[in-house]
């Protein structure tokens, strides 16, 4: 078994160092190493990225970072205040959703379900609404999608295994987890038919290291700022890939780069250049 106390201290120590110099989520040196999104900052970014689930703190953090290289807009199902344009949308199967996505080159689908008493809402949100969003993207000519999923799809495997992106998800029957799997499944079919290129980022439990201090260590923890970095890198990789390295469909696990973490991030390091800063 891993030493949870030591791991926890390590996670927080890494976070403490990583906090220094952070601006909006991604360490400046990392973004400079990433493929240039190709925009002149003086002229302003022209490449549009739509971010869903603007209600979530993660979507806000992603928007803040991506705004350094993209023309960012968000969508939410509730009224949300933001520094960036937010369009309220139910993501229905209609022209309004096509209009919502039109003009964007990429979508970051945070896919955070609305809070509801009905336990099956996450299934409906991550299947039907993802389907509507991707059909709209297909109609509007959006070329790239980053979909945020969950590493909990793989926790049914024993901890003795080195579980990678190649392993089959085991969602079980609990609706929240099942919904992540079904959302991935939906995206995969669009990628398979060539409608758009998809990167799935399977996230651990998203926290901020300083806020996790004092809580029992969880080997699924991943710092929000590292997630933001992974999103940035995924978009950049999709832009420059031309199908050579990633192809139309790829999955990456997003965790700290640490033996204390439940899952390895070797693939993300190798293909995306992911360098998490909050490591145990």
């Amino acid at each position, binding site marked *: 078994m891993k030493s949870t106390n030591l791991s926890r201290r390590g996670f927080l120590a890494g976070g403490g160092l990583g906090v220094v110099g952070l601006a909006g989520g991604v360490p400046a040196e990392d973004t400079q190493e990433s493929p240039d999104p190709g925009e002149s900052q003086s002229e302003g970014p022209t490449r549009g990225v739509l971010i869903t689930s603007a209600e979530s703190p993660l979507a806000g953090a992603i928007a803040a970072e991506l705004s350094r290289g993209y023309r960012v807009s968000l969508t939410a199902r509730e009224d949300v205040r933001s520094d960036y344009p937010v369009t309220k949308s139910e993501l229905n199967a209609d022209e309004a959703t096509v209009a919502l996505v039109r003009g964007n080159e990429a979508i970051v689908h945070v896919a955070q379900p609305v809070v509801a008493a009905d336990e099956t809402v996450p299934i409906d949100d991550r299947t039907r609404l993802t389907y509507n969003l991707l059909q709209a993207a297909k109609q509007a000519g959006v070329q790239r999608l980053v979909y945020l999923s969950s590493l909990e799809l793989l926790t049914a495997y024993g901890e003795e295994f080195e579980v990678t992106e190649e392993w089959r998800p085991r969602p079980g*029957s609990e*609706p929240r987890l099942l919904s992540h799997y079904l959302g991935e*499944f939906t995206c995969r079919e669009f990628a398979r038919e060539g409608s758009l290129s998809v990167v799935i980022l399977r996230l651990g439990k998203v926290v901020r290291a300083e806020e996790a201090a004092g809580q029992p260590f969880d080997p699924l923890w991943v710092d929000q700022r590292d997630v933001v970095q992974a999103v940035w890198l995924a978009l950049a990789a999709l832009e420059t890939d031309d199908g050579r390295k990633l192809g139309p469909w790829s999955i990456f696990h997003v965790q700290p780069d640490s033996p204390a973490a439940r899952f390895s991030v070797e693939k993300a390091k190798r293909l995306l250049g992911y360098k998490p800063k909050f490591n145990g």
Partner: protein
Amino acid sequence: MNVLLLGANGYMGPHVVRALAPDHHLRITDIQPPPPDVREALQDHEFRSVDVTDPDQVRAAAQGMDAIVNLSVVRRDPVLAFHVNTLGCYHVMQAAVACGIHRVINTGPHFTMAGPGYENWDHGIGPDIPPHPGTGLYPLSKSLGQEICRSFTEVHDVCVLEYLFYSLRDKDELRQGAGGVPFVVSWADAAEAFRLGLEIDLARLPSKCEVFFIFGDVPQAKFLNDKAKRVLRFAPKDDVSALWRRPG
């Protein structure tokens, strides 16, 4: 056996009811009421109004049953397709687990598994393939439902037989030279597959979730029905090959 039929008043349901009624006690349900003559002819069986999108209704209908046959489907409505074809499967499996039902027969179109990525390319397509439904509303929403069924069988003591169909014909429509898709079965033979699915010893299934292509003996070998024959002992009686025989 006590059998709950969901979506039983559609195209397939009446045929299945006729095949099962002599040997089983049926709880025949749908959101649509059955025709009066059907209710009159099946007085020994139960009729209920059940909406598969309502988990409480499905669970209540499953009480006291030994098996569930899910025939419910919505093909075009962009909301109901997901609520019936996808979430409906969740409600069915949830009810089966809650009520201790070990046998579920779920249904769908062939492209639940074999969408255009197979059908436009391959021959010899059997049901034991990774699902590639494509992005059509009907196939994808059904395929998501099938994935829900499969996931439940991995963590609960319940078996799912997934029956996939494509073209269904009355016997008198099987005319020589009429042609059609190479995945066709008569309604009577299709219904017989359900009787076999209720009879089969679940221990004989290769796994707790098995997909079967249900169609007659077509000559093209585009798709394969050998698994249904081998595992279910499905023996279609109506000659669908006539559809491609030259007149003369």
